[in-house]
């Protein structure tokens, strides 16, 4: 698990190499989860940066990589100063260089939000324009990232098909943004990262190598990231996200960003394989690639040697594969060596994936605290006795519908308090007979829940309020006589709890613990005393759905 905040790399260049006869690549990778004013902290910007750093280090033409996590504006500008100095030295010697600037984090139309700090896009653009690199590639994964292109008064590409440059130049600048100037960029809890960066990295690993020449160009990865990001975000609650590309490049030839064909290990998806493939680290279950593989196309994904898992879904069928990528080898993804699994157990996205409305069933078992009031005191005064009891069991079932991230609506039914009293009465012949009085109450109703998933959506604290009708049945038994009465009343309640959801394989299942306070004045007597059948309820439960 790539965690954020623990790595505060301020100057983490990969091992410097002596300049070669060719161009030297520099990269400044920035990931910031820090929220700006009025913003919520991001969950995966740091993970995005780590993934980008890894793919560039493994497959890119970058010789020096610096990564910053949660920096302030001064640290960013300081890093840019360092890069600018290095690029200036190379330029002075007549040597070519490539500079890649990558940012994942919060942004608004005017600035990158770095926590309490901000870096104005005007300033950033000016600094990037001033770089002495031969080619500068700017990649922004942030809300309204396309606004960077508006600084120069150039309209962003709304659709690559109308704006793509058929012949990319080899000098100048290119800016790839995760969304247009008016769109929001989105994270996916199931992917553990942003949609755009995930597909960008997957594309650089080889999924975007459309001509299968072993290298991925700027145009190829842009097309790939554009399509995949648009498809994935088109069904989210936030809405579609259009990756934009602005190029101001001069010269001939295409700009190569990665060379998966030169990787030391790779996963080979044969031409006949078709379906949705998800590849993840076997230990951490961190997703490294998600591809929609069409039949007839071969695909080679460059990965580090190690153990991986993969799931492949083909319609109603699904397969789970264990893979070991060896150094210097190309590993074939062979479904005949995989386990067929129940399709419902294999899905591409997790329970809190904001693009999917989902349903969950919750079953709870809890203990309710005993509540005494004037009603029960009257029973005691009339010589009824109750077994010593501090708590009583409470069972309920709820159906939860999550139409939007963090908000759920629930409908359910469950029991409230249930108690029994007895007293002995002496007849004229000294015989003893027992009278019993008992009741059972239950409720049905609706609740609204607000939740906030943390830690990869596996821990989900929540709060909810609910109300609805409650009903009770009292029963007065005296030898052969049983007198039952029905009572009705309202209930209202508030609860707080935490859900623990399973890992990616069982991400639609989990357990939870909850504390609730309910008031339910339902049962009354002829003295106009009403008993509150609610009280404090502490419960645990299971939840599952799709």
């Amino acid at each position, binding site marked *: 698990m790539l965690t954020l905040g623990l790595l505060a790399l301020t100057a983490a260049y990969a091992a410097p190499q002596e300049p070669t006869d060719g161009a030297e690549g520099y990269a400044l990778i920035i990931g910031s989860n820090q929220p700006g004013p009025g913003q919520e902290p991001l969950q995966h910007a740091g993970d995005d940066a780590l993934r980008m750093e890894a793919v560039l280090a493994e497959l890119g033409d970058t010789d020096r990589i610096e990564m910053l996590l949660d920096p302030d504006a001064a640290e960013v500008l300081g890093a840019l100063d360092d890069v600018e100095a290095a690029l200036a030295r190379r330029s002075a010697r007549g040597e070519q260089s490539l500079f890649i600037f990558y940012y994942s984090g919060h942004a608004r139309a005017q600035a990158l939000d770095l926590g309490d700090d901000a870096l104005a896009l005007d300033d950033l653009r000016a600094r990037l324009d001033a770089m002495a690199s031969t080619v500068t590639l700017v990649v922004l994964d942030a809300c309204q990232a396309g606004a960077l292109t508006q600084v120069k008064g150039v309209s962003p590409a709304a659709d690559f098909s109308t704006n793509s440059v058929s012949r990319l130049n080899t000098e100048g600048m290119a800016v790839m943004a995760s969304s247009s100037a008016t769109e929001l960029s989105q994270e996916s809890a199931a992917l553990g990262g942003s949609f755009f960066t995930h597909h960008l990295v997957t594309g650089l690993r080889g999924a975007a190598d459309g001509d299968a020449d072993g290298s991925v160009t700027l145009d190829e990865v842009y097309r790939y990231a554009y399509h995949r990001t648009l498809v994935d975000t088109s069904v989210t609650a936030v809405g579609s996200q259009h990756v934009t590309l602005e190029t101001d490049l001069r010269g001939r030839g295409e700009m190569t960003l990665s060379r998966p064909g030169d990787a030391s290990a790779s996963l080979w998806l044969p031409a006949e394989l078709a379906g949705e493939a998800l590849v993840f680290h076997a230990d951490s279950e961190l997703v490294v690639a998600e591809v929609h593989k069409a039949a007839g196309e071969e695909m080679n994904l460059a990965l580090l040697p190690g153990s991986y898992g993969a799931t492949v879904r083909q319609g109603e069928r699904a397969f789970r594969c264990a893979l070991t990528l060896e150094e210097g080898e190309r590993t074939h993804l062979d479904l005949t060596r995989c386990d067929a699994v129940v399709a419902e157990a294999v899905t591409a996205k997790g329970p809190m994936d904001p693009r999917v409305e989902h349903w969950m069933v919750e079953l709870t078992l809890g203990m309710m605290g005993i509540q005494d009031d004037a009603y029960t005191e*009257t029973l005691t005064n009339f010589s009824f006795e109750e077994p010593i009891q501090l708590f009583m069991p409470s069972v309920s079932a709820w159906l939860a519908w999550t139409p939007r991230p963090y908000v759920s609506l629930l409908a359910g039914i469950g029991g409230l308090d249930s108690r029994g009293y007895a007293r002995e009465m002496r007849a004229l012949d000294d015989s003893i007979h027992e009278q019993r009085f008992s009741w059972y109450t239950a409720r049905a109703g609706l609740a609204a829940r607000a939740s906030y998933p943390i830690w990869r959506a596996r821990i989900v604290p929540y709060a909810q309020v609910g109300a609805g009708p409650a009903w009770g049945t009292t029963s007065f038994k005296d030898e052969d006589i049983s007198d039952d009465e029905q009572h009705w009343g309202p209930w209202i309640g508030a609860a707080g709890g935490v859900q623990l959801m399973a890992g990616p394989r069982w991400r639609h299942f989990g357990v939870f613990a909850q504390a609730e306070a309910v008031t339910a004045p339902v049962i009354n007597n002829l003295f106009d005393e009403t008993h509150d059948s609610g009280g404090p309820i502490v419960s645990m439960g299971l939840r599952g759905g799709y």
Partner: protein
Amino acid sequence: MYRATMKRTVVKRASTAGLWLLALTLMGSESSCDPDLLGNPGFDLWCGDDICGWDVEAGEVERVSTWHERDFAAALVGDEVILSQLGDFTHDDADCLVFELLADVGEDAWLTVELDFLDDGIVEFSEPIVPESWEPIYLRTVPPEWYRDARVRLYKEGSGEVQVAQIRLRQEEDERWCEEEPLALTNRPEGAPCTESEECESGSCEQSGTTGVCL
């Protein structure tokens, strides 16, 4: 406020300290498992329109519901109502008595609990009660060292409403409540134990050592 009284003999208690009233609203230590010395203490047995096991010496008694339709009480109807029961217990059954009364006494009404040992019309114990509505009341007394045929009376006066849901009488187990002098009992029949001649109906108590017998 005028309060009517019946013409009956009320024995002056030998010691005013021999009788005391304790009105408690909650006595969780009281147990309904102890045997009742009275029958139908909860007034839930009715013989037609009449309450089983109780004598209506004056006025009328009607069955009414209390907190539940099935939980009955006896409503004492009229300006003067006397409800009594001859208990089947003697000095061998209880030497310290406690009443547990559950009633609702309205305005302009009074309720008195009486004990007539020997059922001879002489009331040895009489105590008015003013309970909170449907809050249990406990009355304790130390009966005579010798007695039989104890009649319990509930005496209602006034135009207000009185409903009685329970009247239980049992042996008090907590000896702390039983340290007072026993009630004095006169008019003892022949053969009854005695210590003074005034205790005997005949007026004669033949002493034999430390004990005596009424002649």
